[in-house]
């Protein structure tokens, strides 16, 4: 019991993830600033922002559904933190595992988007509602390619468990190279999931103010923003575990160090995309995901099926 609490609250749960997420946010912001020829924030800026925002007054508008408005940020944060427990970080085995946990992780990572939708919808403001509708439309666009690209490596490994996949690819590291396309697809899908440029239409500042978060302030907004940062780190962790399963057998400290490098590399790639593209319109985003990304993800599934037959696994 005490150990489970430690896992959940300290490592690799709440405390570790919050510190890692805010540090990753610093890396993201600093790198973005450097790429844009700016100075960028000092290392403690994300922590300072969080503390300051959390100390501000929560303004709850008169017309909103108070229960939904208050609890959605907490659910968002809880879901993204929980999902990390099933992802292998310092070795081929995660803390908890069962056959099918890959689906659970993907499902848990969908919950934050649903809470954005609910939070926005129950805010009862035009901007929030438009943002909510956009984020749910976007969900349908990126979720299919994301599932396909994560499940394709699972097909090859013949398991529905992330730990099983890690074990399989540790034994056959070269097979991971078959999934390079999947890595690209899931990076694009992750951009959509995290609502970042070029897929940040749900919170496009110049169109709908802050989308779902327009009416949020103070502690609740701080929680939402923290949830997004944690989701970014967990997404990067998932990609690192599925597509970059190297060095897991080197022992816990080395594997953990490698994991940090891999996750930060994924985050740096996400930052790079953020600086070199303009925001797409929601219809362009849908067309791009359905017409280009999803077929490529199907291609990845085909590659893995063919490889499985040829390699007689």
């Amino acid at each position: 019991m005490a150990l489970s609490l430690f896992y959940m609250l300290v490592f690799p749960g709440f405390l570790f993830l919050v510190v890692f997420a805010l540090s990753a946010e610093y890396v993201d912001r600093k790198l973005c600033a450097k790429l844009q020829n700016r100075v960028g924030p000092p290392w403690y800026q994300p922590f300072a922002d969080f503390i300051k925002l959390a100390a501000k007054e929560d303004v709850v508008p008169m017309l909103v559904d108070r229960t939904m408005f208050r609890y959605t940020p907490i659910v968002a944060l809880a879901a993204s933190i929980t999902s990390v427990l099933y992802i292998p970080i310092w070795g081929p085995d995660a803390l908890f595992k069962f056959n099918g946990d890959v689906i659970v992780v993907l499902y848990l990572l969908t919950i934050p988007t649903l809470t954005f939708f609910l939070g926005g919808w129950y805010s009862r403001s035009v901007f929030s509602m438009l943002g909510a509708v956009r984020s749910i439309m976007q969900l349908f666009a990126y979720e299919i390619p994301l599932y396909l690209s994560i499940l394709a490596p699972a097909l090859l490994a013949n398991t529905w468990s992330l730990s099983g996949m890690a074990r399989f690819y540790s034994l056959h590291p070269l097979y991971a190279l078959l999934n390079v396309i999947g890595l690209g697809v899931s990076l694009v899908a992750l951009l959509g999931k995290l609502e970042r440029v070029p897929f940040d239409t749900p919170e496009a500042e110049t169109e709908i103010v802050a989308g779902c978060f327009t009416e949020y302030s103070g502690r609740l907004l701080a929680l939402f923003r923290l949830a997004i940062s944690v989701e970014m780190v967990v997404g990067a962790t998932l990609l690192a575990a599925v597509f970059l399963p190297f060095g897991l057998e080197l022992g816990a400290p080395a594997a953990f160090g490698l994991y940090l490098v891999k996750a930060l590399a994924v985050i740096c790639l996400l930052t790079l995309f953020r600086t070199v593209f303009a925001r797409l319109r929601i219809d362009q985003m849908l067309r791009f995901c359905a017409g280009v990304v999803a077929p490529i993800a199907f291609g990845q599934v085909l590659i893995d099926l063919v490889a499985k037959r040829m390699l007689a696994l």
Partner: protein
Amino acid sequence: MHDGENIRIPIGPQHPALKEPTSFSLALEGERILQAGVRLGYNHRGIEKACEERTYIQDLYLVERICGICSHSHATCFCMAVEEIAGTELPKRAAYIRTLVAELERVHSHLLWLGVAGHEIGFDTLLMYTWRDRETVMDLLAALTGNRVNYGINTFGGVRRDVSPEQKAALLKGMDLLEERTKYYISVASEEPTLIERLSGVGTLSHADAVRVGAVGPTARASDVKRDTRKDDPYAAYGEMPFSVITSDHCDVYGRTLVRVGELMESYNMIRWLVNNLPEGPIAVKFPRRVPAGECFMRYEAPRGEDVHYVRANGTDKPERVKVRAPTLANVQAVAHMLKDGYLADMPIVVAAIDPCFSCTDRLIAMADPHSLQPGVLTWEQVRQHGIEWYRRRGVDFTRLNRTFKCGEGG
């Protein structure tokens, strides 16, 4: 905010997409705009009236503050109008320096626009890059005139500062740097797929419509309307200087971007020509304090389009009437037209594409009941009473505060 099946969404008076208060009301069906309404009048400053109360030389500094970006345009236009009434012949060197500052202003304004356009479509990297490069021209303007904005270079009958040989060298060097950077932006604009995707086919204004609604400046030229006051009605040094009018037949926001970037390249060459051909001579002639009776209607090509000043003098040291028509007023009719049948997501860039300047445009305050939309007249006392009651209904009582305010007012 529900209007049957459609949603009516307010953009403004306060909205992150707008840099100044104005109000757009968009009727939406999903993400498509069915109808767009524009309401101006949140930023009226009464400058025209204030001009009548001041002397000409005071007015010169006041009209320079009509716009923060094209300040030189308004000052020069006003200056030329007053000089025309007084019949003053401008020294050639002064005309060249005015033109030089005008073109530097166009460069800074277009670079600023390019950054704003990038920001409106979520491409903040472009904003950071262009605004960094814009510092070059801002520094040149500061060295030349003493100010980064509101240059104060004009005076009636000439200019107030001369150009030194060192400044000439700095100008040429700055133009080389900016030309190289602008070539880079041209390659970005023609190769970056998300940028092209977001700009082409957006905010379409056909050639016929541009003529019909009387669009001016880069907005009109992007619809292939060859309208440029610098060519059509040359003033200052434009009659002697070789340059071409940039047009585009894209008729959309992409075309407006190409026109502005093309004009940047054209301006660099113009600045080089002006620096190399700057004639010798005095920079100002004596100008009388009292302007003889008369009137003048003056046109000037500001970075956003044709700027118009009308001045009527009555023989005293103060004008009888000053009328300003900023380019945005001519283009704002086109915006409602461009927004119709577009996407909500394109609204910020379509509005930004005319390079609007609403405070320069506002000439009156209209108050309308938001429910009936019938204009009416409220006295100051009625407005105050309305405010007090509005807050009292929400549990805030200002009557106490108001009493102290009233006491203070008497003293």
